[in-house]
């Protein structure tokens, strides 16, 4: 297992859910990582994108939209003016609207370009929080799957992905079909499953995101963000039930192995 030295963690808000409080996440990381500096940097576009690069970046964003989840996007069609303009407004912070599905690996690649060259290193953990929904292609079943996160340089955590990617209980989808057929209100259905899954602007969002931020930290430390222990915050949940348990319901935050790793603190760069 690779154990490098961790220098600094940077948190960026790329239009994440409004319920997300980055200072709360930063304070949590400070408690867990002790000697490592945690910095909240705000909007990465405002920080690193020059005015003349905005249009190119917007075009890049518009070109990685997934139009059909069953067809692998190799080189997407030239985006339309309206799509580029939407992305331009999004980059400028003039809208936080969502509803588009992006290729997660391509999105990660676009965000990589924003990071200063001298900070492109595993010594620095860059975490972009976004409300963009992204997916990655699965060669086994030949379709895209929505994701909560992509871990790389930078790591990206999607507040929309936390709602949409892990599957809700099977009964929910069955009842949802019935509700839609009968023209009944979905909020009524959601009420009957209250607490069973993370919803938009959920008051538990910050607590959940803390665990995903730690996954990004472990990714930089050992190359593996995940743990097999279902009660550990590093568990890679594919169901909402698993997510809620790992992040909110478990009796412990981290499994014994990861707790010990954090307590040892050997990975913190001496400053």
């Amino acid at each position, binding site marked *: 297992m690779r154990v490098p030295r961790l220098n600094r963690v940077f948190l960026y808000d790329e239009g994440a859910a409004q319920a997300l409080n980055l200072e709360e996440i930063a304070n949590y990381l400070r408690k867990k990582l002790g000697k490592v500096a945690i910095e909240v940097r705000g909007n990465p576009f405002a920080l690193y994108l020059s005015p003349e690069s905005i249009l190119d970046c917007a075009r890049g964003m518009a070109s990685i939209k997934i139009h059909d989840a069953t067809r692998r996007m190799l080189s997407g069609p030239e985006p339309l003016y309206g799509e580029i303009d939407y992305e331009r407004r999004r980059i400028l912070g003039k809208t936080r609207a969502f509803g588009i599905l992006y290729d997660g*690996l391509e999105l990660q690649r676009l965000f990589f370009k924003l990071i200063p060259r001298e900070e492109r290193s595993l010594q620095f953990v860059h975490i972009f929080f976004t409300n963009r929904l992204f997916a990655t292609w699965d060669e086994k079943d030949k379709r895209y799957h929505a994701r909560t996160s*992509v871990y790389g340089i930078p790591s990206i955590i999607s507040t929309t992905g936390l709602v949409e990617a892990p599957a809700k209980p099977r009964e929910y989808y069955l009842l949802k079909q019935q509700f839609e057929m009968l023209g009944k209100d979905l909020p009524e259905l959601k009420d009957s499953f209250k607490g069973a899954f993370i919803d938009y602007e959920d008051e538990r969002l910050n607590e959940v995101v803390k665990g995903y931020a730690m996954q990004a930290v472990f990714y930089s430390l050992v*190359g593996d963000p995940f743990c097999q222990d279902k009660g550990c915050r590093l568990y890679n949940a594919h169901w909402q039930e698993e997510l809620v348990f790992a992040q909110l319901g478990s009796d412990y935050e981290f499994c014994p192995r990861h707790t010990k790793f954090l307590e040892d603190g050997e990975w913190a760069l001496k400053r």
Partner: protein
Amino acid sequence: MGIEKIEIKEDKTVRELIAELNLSSVPILLELEGEVFYPDDRHDRRLKAGDTLMVIPIVAGG
């Protein structure tokens, strides 16, 4: 696959290394001499015997 350190035994290009390791369809970053890059952005970059390269997988969750 976690982060792996690779010592280059003989001169080759990044493209040749990626083919040799069968990583052409795996999302990864490479780190060499403090520089992190996508392999297809530096396909023709020469790697020298004795170079130490870090292979950093990009991992999706959820």
